[in-house]
């Protein structure tokens, strides 16, 4: 079954036939994790780096922000038997519009925050496809861990 992950949303599954997919990541980031032994996978689509921007919104929509969304994504897969050191982690998105002044650098800051969090928690990145001006659609097959990425201007490929 196709399970759509919306903007500021997160989904986890351990059903082999499920495919998690999130459409049109612009400056947002998609975090895709999969445990090859427990055959459980999860996907997060966060929009902004830091929940201190608006505590009430972070309460209502924890997956809107990197710092409140990422830990929840990992914990949710542990419930299905995933282990941190087995998880294959991929990060995509974080594009931005062409602004030489760098005011519209949300994409870059979204990238920076996930790197920092992974560094702190000793999580290795298996693959990443970030930045540029493309928008991305990413999918994860729960049964196989195969990740497909579609980027505007670059076509579709396996990540």
């Amino acid at each position, binding site marked *: 079954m196709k399970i759509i992950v919306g903007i500021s949303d997160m989904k986890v599954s351990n059903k082999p036939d499920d495919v998690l997919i999130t459409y049109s990541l612009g*400056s947002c980031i998609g975090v895709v994790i999969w445990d090859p032994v427990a055959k459980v996978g999860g996907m997060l689509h966060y929009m902004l780096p830091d929940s201190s921007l608006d505590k009430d919104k972070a309460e209502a929509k924890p997956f809107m922000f990197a710092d409140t969304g990422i830990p929840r994504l990992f914990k949710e897969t542990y419930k299905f038997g995933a282990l941190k050191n087995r998880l294959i982690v991929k990060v995509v998105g974080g*594009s931005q*519009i062409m602004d030489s002044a760098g005011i519209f650098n949300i994409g870059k800051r979204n990238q920076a925050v996930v790197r920092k969090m992974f560094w702190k928690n000793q999580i290795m990145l298996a693959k990443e496809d970030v930045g540029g001006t493309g928008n991305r659609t990413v999918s994860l097959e729960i049964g196989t861990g195969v990740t497909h990425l579609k980027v*505007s*201007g670059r076509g579709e490929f396996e990540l």
Partner: protein
Amino acid sequence: MSRLDEILSLVKHVPPFPKVAQRVSEMLNDPEVSAAALAEVIQYDQVITANVLKICNAAYFGLSRKVSSLDEALVIVGNDTLKDIIITSSSARFYKGAAGEGYKLDQGELWKHSIAVGIMAKELVKYVKDVESGSAYTAGLLHDIGKRFLSSFVADDFKKIMMKVVQDNCSFVEAEKELLGASHAELGGMIMSQWDFPKEIELAVLQHHDPDALEKDPLTAIVALANALVISMGIGVGADGLSVKMQGGGLKRFGITSMHLELCMANLLMELDRAQELFHI
């Protein structure tokens, strides 16, 4: 006939914008106007009548109770909201079906993008003085009207346009202009002028992709900024992706910082949840 001539002749044959919308807008400039007089005008357009009821009952406009007749709706809804409702339902017909196909937008995506930019533009009025909320919403809703009519031409030359974007590091609109002779923003400006919209709204549509849009007329700046933010969020973004040029330095004059932009994005996401019904009118 050259491509550009073809495109320009297409503009001449663009169907008119519903007369009802302009008529009602004029009437609403008089604060004393009666609901009966408004109903008299609106009921001639069945689509708009149906939509007024539908939209009145949408969570986004937050009425305290359901309404079942046009007369009743007009008594409850404030003039500003009524303007927004009329412009929403008048615009919807132009975005129906495969309106953004040439841009690799799925059905309904261009409409969703347009509503999102309209709502974001209203959100930004908080930070920009001298812009009336109704104008911001209208210009936001119609900023991409040119895409609706340029779509099939873009589809024909799609590969060339994309190639140019990738190879020359230019924006999608620059490539459009180069290869087709006109960009969707220019086309939109022409259409707005043909539809007799106020000059400031026409300009906002025309210039929404100018890299220095943030330095221009406040309404133009708002629409360009709203569009840039909605594109960043990935809402209704086609093959053109984020290849949009914008000099962010222009935000200084409004005192808008990165933090404000993030807050606007967060607010819009919440608003869109409430605006769901508008996507399906």
